């Protein structure tokens, strides 16, 4: 079974996000693996463990630093890594999806995994776009996948614990919200070892599909309210919170 996982590295939202021009300044932020890709790598490896096959991770290298997350994926159980050497940080989702779909086509995938979304989306998610360009069905918000023969059975989440189970004839694209088990941990030593030995295949970007969305501005949101901030040491903060709760009859 040919299992493909598209992975993306994005600016870490734990940090400050300085703006340069009309976008986040990619040179002064840390990039991390999109959290949903960690889930989809796990789901892909679980499928491989269940039915056999090869897991290939593929990404568009937008800022020339993708190797780090490809190595992480290999350390977590992927078998092969491919990067589309684009070096165009401002390529939109349509363009990236087109490049990815061209790179993925050649792999004759049985199932393609993408994360349900990434936090820096502006023009929609790449999973459904990949499905459109590859002419495969798509289901997103997925929290479990089982493959049997030529059929995948997937659970899609709605809200509040409601969901639906679907059976899909492969190939398909799955947008992973969560793997059916918490993702495994890859020790740093293993990632380092992989980084020294792994070969990453390079593919030149091919295809053109920009959809035309012009950035006008990027800035912290205009807010209508702000919390009343409680200052002081942690002990003082705790004391003030307890006092507040007592005054409202909540403690």
């Amino acid at each position: 079974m040919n299992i493909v996982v598209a992975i993306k590295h994005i600016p870490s939202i734990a940090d400050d996000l300085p703006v340069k021009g009309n976008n986040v300044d990619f040179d002064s932020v840390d990039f991390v693996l999109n959290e949903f890709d960690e889930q989809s790598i796990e789901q892909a490896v679980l499928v491989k463990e269940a039915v056999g096959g090869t897991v290939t991770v593929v990404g568009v290298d937008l800022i020339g630093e993708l190797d780090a997350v490809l190595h992480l994926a290999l350390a977590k159980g992927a078998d092969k890594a491919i990067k589309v050497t684009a070096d165009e940080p401002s390529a939109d989702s349509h363009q990236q999806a087109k490049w990815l779909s061209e790179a993925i086509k050649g792999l004759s995938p049985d199932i393609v995994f993408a994360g349900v979304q990434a936090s820096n989306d502006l023009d929609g998610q790449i999973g459904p776009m990949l499905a459109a360009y590859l002419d495969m069905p798509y289901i997103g918000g997925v929290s479990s996948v089982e493959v049997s023969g030529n059929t995948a059975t997937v659970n899609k989440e709605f809200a509040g614990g409601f969901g639906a189970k679907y059976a899909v004839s492969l190939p398909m694209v799955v947008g992973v919200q969560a793997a059916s088990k918490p993702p495994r941990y890859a020790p740093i030593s293993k990632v380092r070892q992989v980084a020294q030995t792994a070969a990453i295949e390079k593919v030149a970007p091919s295809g053109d599909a920009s959809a035309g969305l012009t950035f006008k501005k990027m800035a912290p949101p205009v807010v209508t309210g702000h919390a009343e901030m409680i200052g002081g040491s942690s002990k003082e903060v705790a004391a003030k919170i307890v006092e507040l709760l007592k005054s409202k009859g909540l403690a």
Partner: protein
Amino acid sequence: MSNDVFVITDHMDGKFSDVSFEMVGKAKELASALGGGAVAVVVGSGVSSNVFASDSTIHVDDAALSQFNPEAYGKVIEALVKEKSPRLVMFGWTATGMDLAAWLSARLGVPCAAYVKNIDADLTMTCQVYGGKMSADVAPEGDMAIAACLAGSFPAEAGQGSTAATSIASPVSLDGLKTKFIEAIKPAGGDVDITAQTKLVSIGRGIGSKDNVELAEELAQKLGATVSSSRPVVDAGWLPRTRQVGKSGLKVKPKLYLMLGISGAPEHLEGMKSAELIIAINTDKKAPIFNVAHYGATADLFEVAEAMLELL
């Protein structure tokens, strides 16, 4: 090419989600500025569709559409949009809209904006990105654009009405679909119902590990509260799914929502922003939760929780 604004409505178990009404209200405003009509589109069977204040409502009614099926719904919407060429197509950024909006934009080669919070009359869209930390203004090029809108962005009342829907059969054949609906999944029971609690101590990824959950349990016990959480805590297996607050979790409205290490992503806010008293502890002074909480402190959750335990 028309100046109509299409709203692809979102429903479950015969009930429309609030975002459907919110979008219809906004569509009316935009359509009148553009010189077109606001068209509510209902795809599905067994749902009563005369509930919108739209200029018109199209109801594609077919037994094959009685349950959400992204492949079938996508085909129907694509055919309809191709035939009518609206200026703007609005989806909710919901479990259904997320499967359809970007797919349609790739099929049609038109621009799409996600996480849309506002749309101006010239179709400049304001989008929330980076987990609510940033906001971007984008302008679509061309004759058609797609907007995937965040719930809670526009007032719902303006979209509520009684426009009579026109029922039509599916404009495309729905035979030979590769995607088959098997069954509905119901929430797992057997745990406390967090929606029924008056006080919640809610933990996020900042809690760091499963072992640290105990500290939150102790604090909750002292306060007579229950522990709830953000999604990553559940995905990591530190708490059961029944404790998850948010878009894909449960909506809660307690008297106290004490947040430890939750950043305040839009998906989390969807589940708790109407809590009566929200107090957030977070080490990041720029965490978006501070724009929503009533009280906040830039502090370490472990230090604050331990100090609170000593005082209670």
